[in-house]
């Protein structure tokens, strides 16, 4: 087994609708064998002659050993590229690169873990949960979304987790409210030692904040940010940059795909996402009059 990513033409096994999302299973033995929880794959969409050049990056919901090795991804059909994916049929081919990015760091001891997810991003937590359970960790879920159809995997979480707390904004499943509202209570009740997160940026920000208040380490996957900004997934295009506060106190712009997608929550400058903070390494300096006139 090697940890270098591969590019392969994968055969579609199934595409099915799950709640408000789509789940696609692809036969990709080399990727399934190398995959570690938290890593993602980058798909080319639109076919060989498409003008849609941006690769779509998705976390992996599950890898299985059937057919030599399959990977299953969960995504929301939000734009023409994902609509194309949702329209694929069995036996179609997809150009797939993976597994990419840094995985979730795993605790050495069997500790209590809280896994917090939102929207389709919650899917990536299940592969992590499997690994943690195998290591004897306790796994508690908190999953949230706007409504019951947009909380991915609530039943699965109840089945495999030691506990599962569901929140929806409209109260159609679980508790009415946001993930943030229940997090302090769940952390207290479960006695969590570490918090993992995957989902929308706002959710990750509150996960990090609440974990910080309890003095817990947080590992978050910025997969959703990568989906919005990234183009290659392998670290060459520099489109997925986000500001990260380094050990040495210097903020650097790092690549969500290659330096992430799993990052220490407390290192990410959440408030500055989408900007180049003025104190980041290489940020545009205050322009003098001569420079300012030009650009």
């Amino acid at each position, binding site marked *: 087994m090697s940890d270098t990513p591969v590019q392969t033409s994968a055969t579609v096994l199934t595409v099915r609708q799950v709640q408000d999302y789509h789940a696609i299973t692809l036969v990709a033995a080399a990727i399934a064998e190398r995959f570690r929880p938290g890593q993602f794959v980058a798909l080319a969409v639109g076919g060989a002659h498409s003008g849609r*050049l941006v690769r779509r990056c998705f976390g992996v919901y599950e890898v299985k050993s059937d057919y030599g090795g399959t990977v299953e991804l969960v995504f929301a059909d939000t734009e023409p590229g994902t609509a194309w994916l949702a329209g694929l049929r069995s036996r179609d081919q997809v150009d797939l690169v993976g597994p990419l990015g840094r995985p979730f760091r795993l605790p050495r001891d069997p500790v209590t873990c809280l896994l917090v997810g939102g929207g389709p991003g919650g899917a990536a937590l299940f592969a992590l949960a499997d690994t943690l359970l195998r290591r004897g960790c306790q796994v508690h879920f908190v999953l949230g979304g706007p409504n019951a159809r947009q909380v991915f995997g609530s039943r699965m979480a109840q089945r495999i987790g030691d506990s599962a707390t569901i929140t929806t904004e409209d109260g159609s499943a679980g508790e009415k409210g946001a993930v943030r509202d229940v997090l302090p209570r769940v952390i207290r009740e479960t006695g969590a030692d570490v918090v993992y997160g995957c989902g929308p940026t706002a959710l990750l920000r509150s996960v990090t904040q609440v974990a910080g208040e309890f003095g817990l380490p947080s590992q978050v996957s910025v997969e959703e940010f990568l989906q919005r*900004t990234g183009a290659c997934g392998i670290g060459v295009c520099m489109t997925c*940059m986000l500001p990260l506060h380094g050990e040495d106190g210097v903020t650097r*712009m790092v690549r969500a795909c*290659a330096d992430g997608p799993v990052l220490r929550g407390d290192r990410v400058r959440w408030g500055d996402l989408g900007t*180049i903070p003025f104190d980041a390494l*290489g940020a545009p300096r205050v322009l003098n009059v001569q*420079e300012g006139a030009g650009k």
Partner: protein
Amino acid sequence: MSTSGRVATRIGTLELANPVMTASGCGGTGRELAPFFDLSRLGAFVTTSVMAQARAGRPTPRVAETPSGLLTAMGLPGPGIETFLEHELPWLLEQDVPIIVSVAGNSVEEYADIARRLRGVPGVAAIEVNVACPNVADRGLMFGRHPGAAASVVRAVRTHSRPGLPVLAKLAPDVTDIVTIALACVDAGADGLTLINTLEGMAIDPETLRPALTGVSGACRGPPSARSRSAASTRCTRPCPARRSSASAGSPPAWTRWSSSSRGRPPSRSAPPCSTTRPPRPACCASWRRPSPPAASPTSPTRSGSPTNPPGTSRPRCARSRRPPNRARPEK
């Protein structure tokens, strides 16, 4: 590495085993590409343009997908020459492939400074001068838009780099007459020309009515297939200005390129079926700037025999008018 064989290529004194090179900025630091193929199979690896200081580049979003290709506005992010020499170049030089260092700057002195820093580095096969950078001393006007300015940076690099080291000038396409600029660069000491840097373009988000990129306009790059598909519908038959210019510059760079970057696919997959008779790039993916004011454009736009189209002549109007109503329109 053998330079014999039918695909061996020579650019000035630079000898390459084959004509396939990465496009600058599309191969990252090289480490990102290495898992996918053996770098030593390339004719040469061209680095991302390196500047004097570390640069964070532009805020996100830096990329916008359009039906005519990918728009990007990076702002030349990079670690700066110091970190580049310390952490990136040594690894590249260990690979069994010629390394061409692409240099960029905001002033003639910056180009000269980088060339001086590279002078002492053994193993660099050539320098590529990216002239598509704003010149701070000239109100941010791109060096590559002006023959004199383009020549001055090429000359600066030529003067300060190791004698005999091949220098390539990478030209910017959005100019009135690329031939004049190419000739000026050759006169200034360029051993070869790299054609071409990306074309300017702009996309508007139809919902926010704001530019899709933080950098407002960006560089259009994309699948020849997607572009020629839209070009084909307009039946453009003019020869490609860039192609011709390389011929008239006397030393056509005899290599092809592929950017592995964002598409990450081999070029064959996106090559149009009729690539030999590929029509010129349609205007729908690039913004055609109004002709620059006369002061800033010393070359006559109507030079006879010039391959560039004088504004207002019979250039076919591309798919613009057939564009579906909610698609982003190019900047005028």
